[in-house]
Each structure stands twice: as structure tokens, then as C-alpha cells.
């Protein structure tokens, strides 16, 4: 177990190293970053001076090592636009994004898990049919469209919730619903198929044959085992939600990291873009590491030789 934890952590570090290469490459994709920093009419001499100052004349690998050294210490440089450390900006906006993501995922779980389990228990019932239509629609509806529809109906039409901003609990309802819908559909689908699979297992039949009440068999034996695979997808779902937050925050003017990122991209604020990609990727890696470890604990049958992810 300890060996596995150590290996899994090392592997996560390797992934983060890979992320850093891509994040570093992002800046150099544009060719010469000094041109972005200086006004168009800057003299050739100034450009050369700034290049030297930023160390852009050094070999690429030297620049990368320097970048990595700083990034490890949380130093991604100053945001071009805001002229404050990029990381500070992220920490200001991250709570809003986490709030939205957790609300979206929470909503998805609260609706999807019972819906999926009930559909499995009452297979081919009206409820099952309604759920499966919901799942199909939820998976086909892009978050930006669902967001607009929600605004049209519940903000503009009925006036129940605000259409934009982050002000009081009512303002999170629409963005969290839009963001969580896709995950809701996927989780409901997995919960249903997982439950069906478990209900068909021999030990469930044995338990039934032994005269244990259906209620106990369903909710104690089957449900516990069906819940295990759900835990792993939550980690991946979380990554999808963080990505989805970029769009959701743009639609609902939610002051989070996603909106900051879109803004940074459009104002060519590369240090900020780099920092955001790095922070979100790190968050994803750490969450999945924790979930993998919890998973091995929950399901002792799993002996990892190599991570199956």
C-alpha cells in the first residue's frame, strides 16, 4: 500500500512536469513575447533590451528550467494587464469557481444518484423512461445553450433568479444548474447501469435466497457496491466541471477563474493564462490522486500493479 501511494504520488509529479512543459510552450507559441509587452511603435533597441532583461536570448531549455524553478515557488510573474502577481489574482477568484463547481457537482449527485438507482430498481417503468430521456437531453445540451435558456426562462421570463453576477444564494442557482446538467446525465446513467450490474450479481441472488429482506439487500448490499465506481468518476467529472466553468462563468458573469482566463486570453495576458492553466491542472491532478487513494481504501479487491487510469 505504501509503495503504491509513493508510486502514485511520483506519477502525479511526472504529470505536473508534463503540464509545465505545455504551459511553458504556450508562451512561446506566439513567437516573440516581447512584442506583446511593448507598444507597437517600440524601437528595435527597446525590444532587444527587454529580450535581454527577460532572458529570452538564452537557449530554450535554460528558459524552461528558469520558468519551472519559479513556477514551483508559485511565481508565474506579473499579469501583463493587472500588473500584480498572476497567482494572487487566481487566489482571489478561485473561491468563486470552487463554489460554483462544488454546487454544480453537488446538484448533479443529489439528483442523479437517486434517479439512476430508482431507474435501475424500477426498470422499464415510466420513471425509468423519463430519466432516460432526461439523460439523453442532458448529454446533448451544450452548457452555453442551457445557460441561455435558463436565463431566458427563469431570469428574464419569470424573474425568479438573477441572470448574472454573484450576489446572494439565488445567484448561484442558474449557473450551477447549467454547469451540473451534463454531469448529472452522465452520473445518472452510470448509477443506473452500475446498480443493474450489481443487482445481477450472484451474491445479491444468494442474499435474496437466504431470505434477507429486499430492502436490506437493495440498500445495504447492492447500493454499497454500486457506489464504488461512482467515486472514481467524480474525480474526472470534477475536471470536466472546471473546464465547463470557463464557459458557464462567461455566460453568467460569475467572477471566477474561468472568466479571468477568458479575459486573460483575449488581452494576451500570457503569464496569467499560464498560471491559470497550471493551477487548474494541479488541482485536477491532486483531486484525482486523493480519489484514487480513497478508492483503493474503499475497494480492497483492487490491487494496483499500475494505475489503470
Amino acid at each position, binding site marked *: 500500500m505504501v509503495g503504491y501511494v509513493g508510486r502514485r504520488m511520483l506519477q502525479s509529479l511526472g504529470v505536473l512536469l*508534463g*503540464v509545465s512543459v505545455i504551459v511553458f510552450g504556450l508562451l512561446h507559441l506566439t513567437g516573440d513575447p516581447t512584442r506583446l509587452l511593448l507598444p507597437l511603435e517600440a524601437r528595435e533597441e527597446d525590444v532587444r533590451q527587454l529580450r535581454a532583461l527577460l532572458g529570452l536570448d538564452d537557449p530554450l531549455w535554460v528558459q524552461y528550467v528558469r520558468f519551472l524553478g519559479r513556477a514551483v515557488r508559485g511565481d508565474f510573474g506579473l499579469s501583463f494587464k493587472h500588473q500584480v502577481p498572476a497567482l494572487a489574482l487566481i487566489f482571489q477568484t478561485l473561491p468563486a469557481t470552487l463554489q460554483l463547481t462544488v454546487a454544480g457537482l453537488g446538484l448533479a449527485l443529489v439528483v442523479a444518484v437517486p434517479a439512476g438507482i430508482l431507474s435501475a430498481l424500477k426498470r422499464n417503468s415510466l420513471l425509468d423512461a423519463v430519466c432516460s430521456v432526461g439523460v439523453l*437531453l442532458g448529454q446533448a445540451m451544450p452548457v*452555453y445553450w442551457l445557460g441561455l435558456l435558463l436565463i431566458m426562462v427563469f431570469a428574464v421570463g419569470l424573474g425568479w433568479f438573477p*441572470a448574472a453576477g454573484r450576489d446572494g444564494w439565488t445567484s448561484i442557482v442558474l449557473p450551477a444548474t447549467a454547469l451540473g446538467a451534463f454531469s448529472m446525465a452522465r452520473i445518472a446513467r452510470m448509477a443506473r447501469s452500475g446498480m443493474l450490474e450489481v443487482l445481477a450479481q450472484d451474491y445479491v441472488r444468494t442474499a435474496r435466497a437466504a431470505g434477507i429482506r429486499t430492502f436490506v439487500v437493495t440498500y445495504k448490499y447492492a447500493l454499497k457496491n454500486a457506489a464504488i465506481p461512482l467515486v472514481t468518476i467524480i474525480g474526472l467529472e470534477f475536471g470536466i466541471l472546471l473546464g465547463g466553468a470557463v464557459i458557464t462563468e462567461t*455566460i453568467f458573469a460569475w467572477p471566477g477563474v474561468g472568466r479571468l482566463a477568458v479575459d486573460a486570453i483575449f488581452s*494576451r495576458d500570457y503569464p496569467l493564462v499560464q498560471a491559470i*492553466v497550471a493551477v487548474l491542472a494541479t488541482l485536477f491532478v491532486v483531486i*484525482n490522486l486523493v480519489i484514487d487513494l480513497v478508492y483503493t481504501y474503499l475497494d480492497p479487491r483492487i490491487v494496483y500493479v499500475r494505475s489503470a487510469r
Partner: protein
Amino acid sequence: MSVAAATLPVVARARRRVSFRAVFGLGVLLVIGGSAVFAPQLAPWDPARQMLLKRLRPPMWQERGLREHPLGTDHLGRDILSRILHGGRISLGVGLTAVTLSALIGVTLGLLAGFFGGRADAFIMRIVDVFLAIPYILLAMGVVFALGPSLLNVILVMGATRWVQFARIVRADVLSIREREFVAGARARGNRPLRLLLRHVLPNALTPIIVVATLELAFMIIYESALSFLGLGVQPPTPTWGWMLADGRNYVATAWWLATFPGLAIMLTVLAVNLLGDWLRDTLDPRLKV
């Protein structure tokens, strides 16, 4: 295995019921695909033609609606139906090419990882992990913005960020295929590794590739529209569904039809492709987890 045996009736039942869904999906897809291909013939108006006197007209069944603009007009007086028909060309065209590209990358890497194992496998799978960890939409936005939002760049970026799904599923499949006897036999007959891979391993891994490709197509359509919606897709005057939604966003309070119809087009297309993908999976390989 007992699991397979026990779930068999479920699968059989699912298959019978799913066939209706598959027919529905295929039908919708044919209609949408056909109307995209024949958009220039079918569209009543030039999608870029602005008729400022007829701005923001609602669909024809509403008051002030015009018979010649069945789904209404946008803020520049352009015919929404014509724009949706033409937009389908971009959505489906970009989606299909991006899926092809990402399949080429992903299948190649998955084959190499699964077949050769060892260090090659470990290395490729770590790259997969890196791509899983990075929020692809941000990466795509950053790259497209840096390189300039052209049709080609959008397709390249979409393909380069989504190959991971193919790599994972192909690798997992190849890991078991390479242990099978016919592969050992082919090897014993003196086939070289490349021939072994292409003639014996790849054909046996086609099922998951087809299924993933279908489901990924649905994803790519949403992805393309998202980039468009954020202003980083194919540029105007080419109409795309994502652009239309972005335009409609400014009129959610006054003109609901601007954002509603293009979104409906995206949803129907994605729904149809998903139904087809589900059916393919259930029919070809019900145990496939994608």
C-alpha cells in the same frame, strides 16, 4: 464469466428497445447531414444577406412574423433558417475532420503503447495523463488565439486536444489482443511488428474505435460551437451555430428565437449522434465502457 452471463438478458432487452432510438438517431442525422450538404440549394436566402428593414422579426407563427422567414431574422435582418442550414456545414464538417485527426493521433499512440508496452507504454500514458489534466478548452483557446482563428487551426487544435480518448481505449484493447493466439501465430510466421500491428492487431481493435469516434463526433460538435461561442471559432461571415448563439446572447431579453433555434440544432445533432453511438456500442460490444 458470471457477470456477462447475468447481464445478458438486460443487454438483449436494451438492444431491442434501442433499435427504435437508433433509427430515430439515424433519421435525424440524415436529415441534418442532408440539409447541410444541400444548404446552398435548400436555404431560402443568402445566409450573409442583411435586410435591415426586417431586423429581429420573430418566427412566422408569431405576431409580426414573416412567411418568408420561417424562423425569424436576427439583429442584422439575416434569415435564421438559412444561417442554421449553412452553419450545419461547419459544425458537421469541422466535427468530422477533427474526429478523424484525433483518431489518427490517438489510435497510433494507443497501438504503440499497448503493443510494445514497457517504457513506450509508460511514456505515452503519462502524456495521456497530462492531456487529461489540462483544461482542454483553455488550452484550445490559448492556442487558437495565438495562432489565429482559422478553420484549419480550429480543426488542428480540436484534434490535438481530444486524441486521449482513442489512445486509452485502443491501448486497453491491444493489451488483451496481443496476448491472443492468432497474434502469436502471426508472429511465429515471421511477420514484422509493423505488419503485425496493421494486419492483425488493428482490425481486431476496430470496434471500440468506431464507437469512440461516434461519441467523440458528438463531443466535437459541442466543442466547435463552444469555441465559436467564445469568439474563437471559424470567423464571420461564415455562419456557425456557436456564433449565432453568441449573437443571440445579447438579445435573450427581447428576441428569444436568436439563441433558441441554433441551440436546438446543436442539441438535435448531438442527440442523434449519441443515439447512434450508443446503439453501435450495444450492438458491437455491450461490455465496452466508454
